[in-house]
C-alpha cells in the first residue's frame, strides 16, 4: 500500500467532492424553499459552462468578465425557469414538478446541441498550471483551485444565509410556507431568490467543472452524482450536502483508482440505496411526520 498515493487520491477526491457540494447547494436551496427536486441542475450547469465557452472563445472577452457574466446569466436562467415553469405548478404534486424539471433537462440538452453541436469542447485554460504540493503529495492545480473556490463560495453562502434578512426569510419559508406568508414574508420572492442563487451556484460549478474536464452536452450526468450526495446528506440540509458531497467525492476517487472508472456510478448508487434503506430522509434531513 502506497500511503502517499492514497493520500493524493483522497485529496483529489476532496477536490471533486467540493464541486459536488457546491452544486449540491443548488439542489438544497431550491428544495428547502420550494420543495421542488430540480433534476435539471446538471443541465443548468452545462448550459452555463457553454455560455462561458461562448463568451471566452467566440467573443474573446477577458476571463474575469466572462465569469461575472456567466454567474449573472446563471442567476437569470434560474429566475426565468422559476417564473415560467415552476410558479404555475405551485400546489401540484411534487412528482409533477419533478417531471417538469426532467422535461426541462431534456430541453436544455437539445438547446445546447442545437446551437453548439454535440461534440465535446475544451474551455480556455485560465487556471494556474503550477503543481501544488501538500507536504510531498502532489495535487493537480486545477483541482486545488476549484477546491479553494468551492470552499470560499460555500462559506459565503452559509454566512449570507445566517445573517442576511433574506436568509432568515428562506429558513422561515422552508419551515412553514403558510405561516411565513402570514407573517409578511414575501414567499414568492423567496422562491425566486432561491432559484436565482441556485442558478448562480450552478453557473460557478459549471465553469469550474468545465475547465477541469472540458464541456459536452452530456456533462449534466454530473448532476446525478450530486443528486446522490444531496439525498444521502438529506435533501434540505446544506451541512448534509457538504458532508455527503465530500464523502462521495473521496469514495468515487478511491473506487475510480482502485477498481476502475466503470465502478464509480455503481458504488455511488449503491451508497444511495443503502442510505435510503437506513435513513430514508438522509443523514441530516428533516424527518417528515405523516398523519391522516
Amino acid at each position, binding site marked *: 500500500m502506497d500511503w502517499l498515493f492514497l493520500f493524493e487520491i483522497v485529496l483529489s477526491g476532496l477536490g471533486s467532492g467540493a464541486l459536488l457540494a457546491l452544486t449540491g447547494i443548488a439542489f438544497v436551496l431550491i428544495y428547502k424553499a420550494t420543495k421542488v*427536486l430540480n433534476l435539471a441542475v446538471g443541465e443548468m450547469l452545462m448550459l452555463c459552462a457553454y455560455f462561458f465557452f461562448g463568451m471566452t472563445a467566440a467573443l474573446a472577452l477577458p476571463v474575469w468578465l466572462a465569469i461575472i457574466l456567466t454567474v449573472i446569466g446563471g442567476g437569470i436562467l434560474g429566475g426565468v425557469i422559476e417564473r415560467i*415553469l415552476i410558479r*404555475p*405548478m405551485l400546489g*401540484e404534486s*411534487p*412528482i*409533477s414538478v*419533478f*417531471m*417538469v424539471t*426532467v*422535461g*426541462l*433537462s*431534456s*430541453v*436544455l*440538452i*437539445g*438547446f445546447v*446541441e*442545437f446551437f453548439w453541436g*454535440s461534440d465535446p469542447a475544451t474551455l480556455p485554460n485560465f487556471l494556474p498550471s503550477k503543481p501544488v504540493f501538500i507536504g510531498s503529495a502532489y495535487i493537480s492545480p486545477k483541482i486545488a483551485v476549484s477546491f479553494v473556490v468551492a470552499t470560499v463560495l460555500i462559506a459565503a453562502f452559509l454566512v449570507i444565509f445566517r445573517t442576511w434578512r433574506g436568509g432568515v426569510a428562506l429558513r422561515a419559508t422552508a419551515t412553514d410556507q403558510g405561516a411565513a406568508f402570514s407573517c409578511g414574508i414575501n414567499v414568492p420572492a423567496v422562491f425566486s431568490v432561491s432559484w436565482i442563487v441556485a442558478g448562480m451556484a450552478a453557473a460557478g460549478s459549471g465553469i469550474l467543472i468545465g475547465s477541469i474536464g472540458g464541456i459536452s452536452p452530456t456533462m449534466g450526468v454530473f448532476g*446525478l452524482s450530486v*443528486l*446522490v450526495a444531496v*439525498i444521502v446528506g438529506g*435533501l434540505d440540509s446544506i451541512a448534509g450536502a457538504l458532508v455527503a458531497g465530500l464523502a462521495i467525492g473521496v469514495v468515487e476517487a478511491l473506487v475510480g483508482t482502485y477498481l476502475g472508472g*466503470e*465502478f464509480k*456510478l*455503481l458504488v455511488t*448508487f*449503491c451508497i*444511495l*440505496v443503502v442510505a*435510503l*434503506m437506513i435513513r*430514508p*430522509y438522509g443523514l441530516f434531513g428533516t424527518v417528515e411526520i*405523516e*398523519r*391522516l
Partner: protein
Amino acid sequence: MRIGAVHQTYAQAEALLDTNFQRVMLAALFAALVLFPFFADQYWIYLACLVLIHIVSTTGLNILTGYTGLVSLGQAAFMSVGAYTVAILEIRVGTPFIINLILAGFVSAAVGLVVGVPSLRVKGLYLAIATIAASFILHFLFANGPAFLGGTQGLSMPPARLFGYDLARPFQLYWLFMPLTALSVVAAANLFRTRIGRAFIAIRDRDISAEVLGIPLLKYKLLSFALSSFYAGVAGGMWAYFFRVVTPESFPLIYSVFFLAAVIVGGMGTILGAILGAIFMTMVPEFLKIAVSYLTFIPNATAQLSPIRTIVFGALIIGFLLFEPQGLAEIWRRVRRFFHIWPFKK
C-alpha cells in the same frame, strides 16, 4: 345525442363496455387492427410493432405510477431484464417464444420485487431516485457481469420461430405482438375491477388511509411493482425479438423517462391514457421527421433533427404537465362529451 347511460344492475355498472355503440366501435377497431398490415407498407408496420411494444410497457408503468402512485424511473431497466432473459433462453435453451416471453415477465417481476422493497420506507421523490439507482446497478451488471451476458457487446439472437417459420420481418411479428398487446391491455383494464386493483387505487389516493382500511401496504406495493415489471419484462422480450440485438446501452435512463412521459402525456391512471400516450410519444419523432423535411428554408434542417427531437420531447412533458395535466385521455373525453351533447354545445 346521448347524454348518459342508465345502469340498472351492478353488473352493468361494472361492465367494461356499457353501450352497443362502444361494442360496435371496438369491433371496428379490431377489424382495423387485423386489416392494417395488408394496406400499410413495411415502414408503417415497423412503427406499429414499436408502438405495440411501447403500449405494453407503458400500460405496466401506468399500473405502478398511474394507479398505485409509486413513481418509477426504472421501467426501461425492467425491460432490459426481460430482453436479456429472452435472448439467453433463445440462444442457450431454445424454448418456444411464448414460454420465453412469459419467463421474461416472471424474471422481471422478481427483479421488480427486489427494487420495490424500499417502497415502504421511502416514497415519492426518494423512491423515484431509488429506481434510478436500480437502473444504473442493472446496467452495470449487464455490462460487466458474467460472460454469458455478452458484456458491452451484448447478445445477438435468432428470430422467433413458429411451426418452423421464422418470424423475422415486422409483418410477421405484428401478428405476434398485436394479440399480446391486446391481451395485456384487457388484462390491465380488468385488474382495476378486482379487489387488487381497487387496493392499488386506495394506496394511490392516500396510503395511510388505505392501511387503516386494512390494506397491507407492503404486500400491495410489492405486488404493484411485480405486476408493472412483469409487463415491462414481456415488453422487453418483445423488444428483443423485434431488434434481435440486446446490449446494455439499449435501455438507457432516458428510455425510462420516455415511458413516464408517455404515462403523463396520455393521462395518469387511465387505461386509454397509456395507449394514447405510447402511440403519441412514439409517433412524435416520425411527425417531426416529416415536418422537418418541409422546412427546406432552414439550412441543414435534417442534421439538426436530433436536437430538435430532444427539445420537443422535453417540451411535450413540460407542456402537458403545465396545460393538460390529465393528458390526452382527458382531451379524448372532452371530444366525446362534445359529440354526446352535440347540438347543445357547452
